[in-house]
């Protein structure tokens, strides 16, 4: 069970924003490119300095070391980063990761595959497996299905859904309104560095 509390979080390029994602909820974040969606996610993940506070289950992130916070609040950026030559070196527990990776449509074991030869879609799925393998209690997903085929999109949505059923809370950035309605329980609109809850300032509500 995990509830993410964002309290007057602000930074250059992003006006103060407050919201709560309850355990099992998924908040869809929508807005044009450059509106500040990535700034918001990076600030929640504590990757950039920001004012205000973020807490998980009532415990402020300031009360714990940043590495521990980032393991609890898993951030999957739109562009994945790779620091070693082969796939396996990017995972702590390969056996555990492999189960996730196979589910994400890898027929063969990609352990020894060189990163440089992976397609965009393969990188995206492997990065998701890498983030999920940490068992984060909150998930910050930035366009996690942007370059995936429909089958993989359905798998990713199902896997995230399972995490929610187990009590995780999810923040999902997507340009696709249909996907937002499918995966999320609420919507947050970001426009020119300001965030609006659904039902205000022309931010349409997600009908259940």
């Amino acid at each position, binding site marked *: 069970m995990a509830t993410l509390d964002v309290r007057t979080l602000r930074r250059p390029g992003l006006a103060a924003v407050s919201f709560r994602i309850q355990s099992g909820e998924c908040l869809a974040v929508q807005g044009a490119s450059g509106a500040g969606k990535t700034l918001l996610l990076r600030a929640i993940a504590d990757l950039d300095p920001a004012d205000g506070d973020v807490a998980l289950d009532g415990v402020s992130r300031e009360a714990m070391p*940043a*590495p521990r916070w980032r*393991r609890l609040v898993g951030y999957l950026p739109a562009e994945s980063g790779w620091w070693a030559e082969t796939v396996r070196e990017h995972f702590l527990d390969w056996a555990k990761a492999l189960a996730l990776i196979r589910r994400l449509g890898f027929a063969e074991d990609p352990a020894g595959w060189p990163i440089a030869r992976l397609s965009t879609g393969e990188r995206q799925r492997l990065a998701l497996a890498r983030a999920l393998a940490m068992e984060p209690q909150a998930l910050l997903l930035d366009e996690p299905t942007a370059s995936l085929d429909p089958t993989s999109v359905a798998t990713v949505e199902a896997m995230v859904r399972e995490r929610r059923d187990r009590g995780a809370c999810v923040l999902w950035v997507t340009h696709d309104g249909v996907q937002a309605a499918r995966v999320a329980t609420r919507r947050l609109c970001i426009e020119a560095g300001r965030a609006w809850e659904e039902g205000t300032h022309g931010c349409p509500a997600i009908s259940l």
Partner: protein
Amino acid sequence: MPSYIALSYGDLALAAVLVLVDGALSLLLDLDIHRQLLVATLRMVVQLALMGVVLTALFRIVSPFWTAVAGLVMVGFAGREIVARQERRLAGFWAYGLGTVSMMVSATLVTILALTTAIRPQPWFNPRYAIPLLGMILGNAMTGISLGLNAFTTGLSQRRPAVEAQLMLGATRRQALGPVVRQSLRSALMPTINAMSAMGLVSLPGMMTGQILGGVAPAEAVRYQLLIMFLIAGGTGIGAVAAVMAGLYRLTDARHRLRLDRLRSPAR
């Protein structure tokens, strides 16, 4: 009676004709470097003549204070050179301070170690030994530190997604920056390693050549050269590690964030 052959100004003038030959070639082949050649030659003559005057005075008074002042001035110039060789500089005081302080600490440490244990002149700070020793160690530490810092800031800027990916997965700043740190330190030490490998086979080091021309027996000169190379290796290693580790802490913060906002944009 000195065992070396003294040079007169006339001897130098004859050799200087060779620089004029370079200048003539530049004019003839349209290389357009004769002006730079002239300025560089004049700078060298003036700088070295001044150095000769300063060293003569320093050697005569043998004062710990003035020896330290001379050392500090040398460190100051070397620090400026480190900054000039950075493609991406740290913002504010750190651009100059970080490399200079690392270099000063490592070079001073190594020089004092050599003066008090290996060479043991009387008194131990005797500028006749301290200043040339410090100069050689500084020159090499300067190269190592500027290469290391440059590789560090460039590596971090280019590999930011990879570094941040590790931070996102819960790595500490030292874990996440580890690959870039190691790469930078390898760059810093490579010239020293290369110099040691080629020494004696390809190159006869300048200091050893100087001693031999000055009448010192080759075996003696070799021992001095070995001592200097060990000192250079130590000074460069300590200085580069200090500079890159300080850079690691400057370009991250206590929340284990990568703080590339503390870098200025590329100079060119």
